[in-house]
């Protein structure tokens, strides 16, 4: 398969400028949330949702993961699940440190 043929995997032409505007809009909303939302829990959830949304746009449309086969998708997504579990485990540990800051 030539690269040009492989590029045919670009089947449905992605509107990259639309994705750009989405990313820009989401970034602006994120900054506004950080500045305007006083509730830390609400702010944290909002920012996490928007960050994941932006990451998904980059992963799917710019890195073209949505056009790949299931084997590659699983190879990429499985470590992402491990990453979330790893960070959760780290966070659980944080309560045992008793660190008081500097």
């Amino acid at each position, binding site marked *: *398969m*030539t*690269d*040009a043929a*492989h*590029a045919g995997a*670009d089947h449905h032409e992605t509107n*990259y*400028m639309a*994705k*750009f505007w989405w*990313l*820009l809009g989401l*970034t*602006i909303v*994120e*900054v506004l*949330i*950080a*500045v305007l939302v006083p509730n830390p829990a609400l*702010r*944290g959830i909002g*920012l*996490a949702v*928007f*960050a994941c949304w*932006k*990451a998904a746009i*980059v*992963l799917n*449309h*710019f*890195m073209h993961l949505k056009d*790949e*086969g*299931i*084997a*590659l998708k699983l*190879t*990429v997504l499985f*470590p*992402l699940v*491990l*990453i979330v579990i*790893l*960070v959760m*485990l*780290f*966070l659980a*540990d*944080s*309560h045992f*440190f*008793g*660190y*008081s*800051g*500097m």
Partner: protein
Amino acid sequence: MDAAAHPARPVHLDHPFGGVDNKKLGMWLFLGSDAMGFTGLLGAYAVMRVSAGASWVPIDPKTNAPHVLPQVLTGINTFLLICSSVTMVLALKHCRAGNLGKFKGFLFATMMGGVGFLSIQAYEWTHMIQTGITAPASNFGGTFYMLTGYHGFHVFGGVCLLAWALLRAMKGVYGPDNSIGIEVVGLYWHFVDLVWIILFTLIYLL
């Protein structure tokens, strides 16, 4: 690689992973392991930040208030990196379409986006060090410089990679039948953008 051009070579050796080019698969695997490296640092950051509670951000002796990270400036930097991701994907698109002039232009613009990002980060670091936030002074400073520095190192690597790709593009190496190198470089560059999206949210906004 076209299997038809090498009839003696079994197809499964060229594409052992469901038709995915070996170079691309290699880059995806590298990115997976690199993501684990970032996760280790992010985990350390999260542990120290959560256990520190409200005393996480050091006090600015001049204002007697916690230091405020430059959210707007870094927001602009994030915008710059997003722009460079778009120019990267457009470079690949034009390379595949055979519009080699536009391809080189977008590749150059991507590289400049990376240079701009690093310049703004250098300015930000200088400003922060002048205001007393240094790596040895606090865990906040240590993790901040480690994470943003590690990412910045990746951006620098990406800029070097883009410069090398641009040089090869000038020599006419890439085109509609040979765009896999650009796709692989693009994967790396988008990964750098993706990581920054997470870092920007966790370090600057949260």
